[in-house]
């Protein structure tokens, strides 16, 4: 494939990250986040205000019999939670589009993004606490490259990749054979185009092939890789690529990923996604009853 920057700049309607998101992402990891700045962003955005109200009055954060107004809600949630909610909504909106290239509905893209973000944050708590918020955002954005490929190639993308798939080929290898690049690399390039921190771009780019310990190794990438595999096991937002991926052996060791821990993470991921959907007031379609 031609130059990645050319691919991205050549698209007519590129996925757009709200300008406030870049600013907020740069505030991640700062334990003394300026509450006033985050509050200002929330107040001027009607959708954000509504979401914050929903969260503060939800079963997880609310108080039965008491309804909090916006000012009270902002104080109640605190700067860290508020920042995460804002990013979840803003970045979530970017990744929540149907993706024909991977045969994924809007709902599948959303669940996959949120599931990966939650799992990455959980793993970060145990392995790189200081990078918890960055892991959350990288988990959220890890498959954003799929949207670029969707705009460029549509449903023909997966069809062409499938021609290179064998029972032992990973989907990213087949993508490389068909197109000379893969959705992770394209996602990394898009993150750089958005001028996000380089570590986030690296985590997105290498989330299917994290570097082994040594030069260039970053636990952040290991965490996003493991979160992606947990999301696959959970079936959160699977598409045409199915489970045609591999868990890097060194990540299993580094993150002490036992079967029991993996199963706990799967259970936690599902519960967290359900709670986010409830807080955001997302409901399922009524034409068919869904068993999950």
């Amino acid at each position, binding site marked *: 494939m031609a130059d990645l920057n050319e691919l991205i700049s050549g698209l007519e309607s590129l996925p757009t990250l709200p300008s406030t998101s870049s600013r907020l992402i740069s505030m991640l990891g700062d334990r003394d986040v300026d509450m006033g700045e985050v509050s200002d962003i929330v107040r001027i955005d009607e959708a954000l205000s509504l979401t914050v109200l929903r969260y503060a009055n939800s079963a997880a954060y609310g108080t039965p019999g008491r309804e909090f107004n916006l000012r009270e809600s902002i104080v109640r949630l605190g700067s860290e939670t508020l920042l995460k909610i804002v990013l979840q909504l803003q970045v979530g909106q970017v990744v929540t589009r149907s993706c024909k290239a991977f045969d994924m509905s809007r709902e599948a893209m959303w669940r996959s993004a949120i599931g990966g973000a939650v799992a990455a944050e959980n793993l970060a708590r145990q392995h790189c606490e200081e990078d918890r918020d960055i892991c959350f955002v990288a988990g959220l954005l890890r498959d954003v490259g799929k949207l670029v490929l969707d705009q460029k190639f549509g449903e023909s993308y997966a069809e062409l990749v499938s021609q290179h798939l064998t029972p032992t080929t990973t989907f990213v290898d087949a993508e490389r054979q068909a197109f000379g690049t893969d959705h992770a690399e394209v996602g990394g390039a898009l993150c750089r185009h958005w001028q996000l921190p380089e570590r986030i771009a690296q985590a997105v780019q290498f989330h299917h092939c994290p570097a082994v310990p040594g030069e260039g190794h970053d636990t952040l990438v290991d965490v996003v890789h493991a979160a992606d595999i947990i999301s696959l096991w959970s079936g959160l937002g699977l598409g045409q690529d199915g*489970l045609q991926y591999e868990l890097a052996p060194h990540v299993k060791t580094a993150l002490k990923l036992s079967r029991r821990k993996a199963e706990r993470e799967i259970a936690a991921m599902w519960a967290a996604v359900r709670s986010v959907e409830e807080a955001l007031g997302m409901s399922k379609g009524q034409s068919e009853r869904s068993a999950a």
Partner: protein
Amino acid sequence: MVVLKGPAAEIVTHALGSCIGVTIYDPTTHVGGMLHFMLPDSKINSEKATDNPAMFADTGIPNLFKQAYELGATKENLIVCAAGGAEVLSDGGHFKIGSRNRTVLRKIFWKNNVLLSADDTGGNNSRTLHLSLADGTVTVRHRGKGEVLWPI
């Protein structure tokens, strides 16, 4: 998990990865149900099993059958199908989440004298499972293609 009565109903579950979808259908009463369980054993988290029994095979499967019986289904009439239980290409042979789900499913059915009428499990594909309560047709869709799993 969903259990319904009436020929007009359709039940679907999307994106079965290592999880397994189980369908049951009684053609005489048009009672049908679907469970999408994620993990084999509720012992890993009893709190989550209480909140959401459908998450685990050992708590979800008995619940699925119980709810169908409450709506008038009978065990001898039930047509039972399953799909899912896929694996990632390589996890070092250690986790086998899909394989453990498949094993526990069979163990529970064997213990309770339940026979699987049809199944499409294993491999690396994501699957979407669909049950029509009009005639009990079970369809599995993966890689953009749909296949009738039952009737065979």
